[in-house]
């Protein structure tokens, strides 16, 4: 008998022995009580709503919201990124991968000697802290307000350089093309180049 459990002590109560009891309902709320309850949602119908019908309606974010990154261009279209990898170095989530390369005469992607050949941001890792933006020495990397970063595969959420580059605006030419005549990289950083020069249109 020793294998059996000890019999219950008289003072202890088995769960099975506790009877179900009726919950106390208190007094009836009455008609006024019901009306009071309905009044709250009713009154809200006349107030301005805070929610929007996303995705049909897209509310603007705060001005300095941290959204998708963007690789900016100089006013003549050359890329600002020099492939220095400081963003990758600063990234606490190891979300950025960069490979630099040589600018050559036939393949001038950015002013100066060096450009970013491979530029990837893994949005499954990015925590949108913005340290990369602080690290960028040429202001090539900034953040947009775009927040719709969801997709159905891991690969699609690793954004390549093409996905991150800013669009060409008025006066810009698609690199590779030579630097503005008579200007060097320092001029570009000082803002001396305002738009592309006809001689840069090599295509």
């Amino acid at each position: 008998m020793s294998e059996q459990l000890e019999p219950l002590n008289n003072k202890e109560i088995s769960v099975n022995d506790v009877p179900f009891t009726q919950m106390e309902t208190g007094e009836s709320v009455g008609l006024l009580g019901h009306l009071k309850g309905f009044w709250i949602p009713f009154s809200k119908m006349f107030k301005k709503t805070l929610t929007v019908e996303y995705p049909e309606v897209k509310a603007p974010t705060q001005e300095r919201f941290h959204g998708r990154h963007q690789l900016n261009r100089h006013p003549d279209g050359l890329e600002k990124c020099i492939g220095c990898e400081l963003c990758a170095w600063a990234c606490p989530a190891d979300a950025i991968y960069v490979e630099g390369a040589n600018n050559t005469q036939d393949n001038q992607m950015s002013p100066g000697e060096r450009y970013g050949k491979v530029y990837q941001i893994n949005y499954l890792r990015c925590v949108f802290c913005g340290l990369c933006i602080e690290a960028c020495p040429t202001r090539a990397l900034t953040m947009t307000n775009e927040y719709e970063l969801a997709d159905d595969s891991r690969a699609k959420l690793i954004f390549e350089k093409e996905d991150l580059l800013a669009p060409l605006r008025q006066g810009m030419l698609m690199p590779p093309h030579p630097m503005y005549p008579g200007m060097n990289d320092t001029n570009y950083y000082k803002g001396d180049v305002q738009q592309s020069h006809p001689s840069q249109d090599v295509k």
Partner: protein
Amino acid sequence: MTTEVVDMITVVIDGFEVSVPKGTLVIRAAEQLGIQIPRFCDHPLLDPVGACRQCLVDIEINGRAFPKPQASCTIPVEPGMIVKTQLTSTVAEKAQKGVMELLLINHPLDCPVCDKGGECPLQNQAMSNGQGQSRFEGTKRTFEKPINISSQVLLDRERCVLCARCTRFSLQIASDPFITLNERGALQQVGIYENKPFESYFSGNVVQICPVGALTGASYRFRARPFDLVSTPSACEHCASGCDMRTDVRRGKTLRRLAGDDSKVNEEWNCDKGRWAFKYVTALDRLTTPLVRNASGELVPASWPEALAAAAKGLKSAKAAVLVGGRATYEDAYGYSKFARVALGTNDIDFRSRLASDEEREFLAAHVVGSSTTYSDIDRADQVLLVGFEPEEESPIVFLRLNKQVRKRALKVTAIATKLSIGVEKLKGDFVKIAPGQEAAVIATQSLTAKSIILVGERAAESAGSLSAVAALAQSTGAKIAWIPRRAGERGALEAGAIGNLLPGGRPVSDAAARVDIAAVWGTDSLPSDQGKSSSQIYAAVNAGEIAALVVGGVDPLDGDNSQSALAALEKAFVVSLEIAPSYVTQRADVVLPVAAITEKSGSFLNWEGRARSFAAAVADSLNRSDLRILSMIAEEMGASVNLATVTSAIKEIASIGKWDGARVAMNQVSPAASPKLNSDQFILTSWRRLLDLGTLQQGEENLAGTARKTVAVISPKRAEAIGVSSGDRLKISTALGSVTLDALVEDIHDDAIWAPRNSQGSQLLVNLGVAHGAVVTVVKA
């Protein structure tokens, strides 16, 4: 070995006492205490210069203080010296901050585009010992950037802090004073001589020791940051010097290699080939799957089981031999050695995929295998004799070590050679001029002592009688012999018994006790007892129908003197080829098995000293298998047991075998060949391979190839006059097989001889002429 008595001097640095040998510099005495004094120009292997002034400290000797802070990298310790570094002296700290501010005045703030960023002594020390702010408000001095000082080294002059490390290295270590400091004041800059680019075999070291990003390598320019790279300690696979290396890999691709720090071997240096020739691993069109020749005679991709079965079937049904190149690791060579004996039951194995002789094989067995002459023997030698060996071209770190001793204590170097080489000239060596083939007679007349060393190159095998004469000379004088092959794997292959007359550990095949030793470890009943054939004999035997199958690993059939015979043999025999990339062998093979390249596997090389240089796999996720493993798989398929699945198992088995302590087989004396009679247009050809040439492992690196020496044919002034040529004229060298036409260079060479590089652009002698040394060739002005 005698222990040297060293005077110790006790000094006080920052309140701590430290005893260091007399002559130690203050900066290094501080290092002993773990006190880091910032520095740029100081380098432990270069002469002190005190150029950068960054290491200023306060010094007081016996109560008398220097009036101003002193450069701790130029002042040796003295008894009673009290040193206060930046840690305890505000004067020293202020001085250092001031120097840093001055150095940074003209230094551009282009760290984001600079390759040194992230591993830059200037960056680091500006953070640790700098001011943080500059008072300079003017315009920085700029230079045009970058300039190529050679095809592989780029100079950004504005980044230079004028520490003179590069110029001192070039002058003191490499004896290639092609760069120097020009101009004065703010315009001072590193420059090259007009019309003389920085074509040194050691130029990569200046990139490594530059404390800023002024000197950068063209092939690594803008490629990566240090935090991208996974570094693996490795060993160099290019020559038998055995440099310690570091391989930096990003995403499975080697981006750069640096010289490691091993004071016993390469100190902190390496040569440009070791540093920059690594792209072949990816540049070559690598084999990815096994290939098997089908019924219609085409090589088609096959699965591993299929390929192994085909290899086993072909090898089992025929008498087979093994050819393993001199590039195999020690463990792989051991695998080939065991495979030949256990699976194929033959001693027909040879690692010497080059010009070789039976005399050499006997010499290796009698005098080299198991021997241990080392770099430190060179440091202690009273005289060094070079026989068939051109150190700068064939084993550059041996050259650096000789050069160090020549510079330090005027070590006497004697070169027995036909042509005075650039390297021997730099070593200020005695040049004993001989006609090719006359080595033996001259070697016999050399006077050496028991403290001398004879450095014998692999080319000594090309002149009959040389090695016999070397052996006799060593016997009579007590001088030590060191055999320095060109390829990294040859010494290991010799110790592993990948040669017909030796079993692993230097055991002679002819010795019954030695065979029993090895048979016991390998678990076989008996081992073949014949002397085995050499490479050329194996090819000949295939062509004669005596051997029907070959296992070939890492061999270029064009490296021998009878490449026609080699190619015919490969065509005729059933060939199992273990290779990393398509080659002349794989084209003719019946089964091709892809193997791991050196970065993809672990293992070791034995350098010329016999010192193990082990390395780990730098690329971790490669699926390629080592030769060793594949041989084990073929053997298993054949029903034999090689059973060496991993490098570790091979290392254990080699260790369990140990070295042979029995008698060595004596060497048969070989007498030299008679010197040929020459007509007025006939010369005796001699050659060697240059460090940078058309070697397979240098493929894919054009920047490196750009610093190769110019291809020329060297001819003596007397003969040049006789056939009416002068330097720059074209010379046509021909044999019955073919000819090469090269620019002539009139220089110090034996009158009977003509020299040309063996495997350089436009001069592939073994392919074009079929001969490389000692043969009579016809030379005419083209």
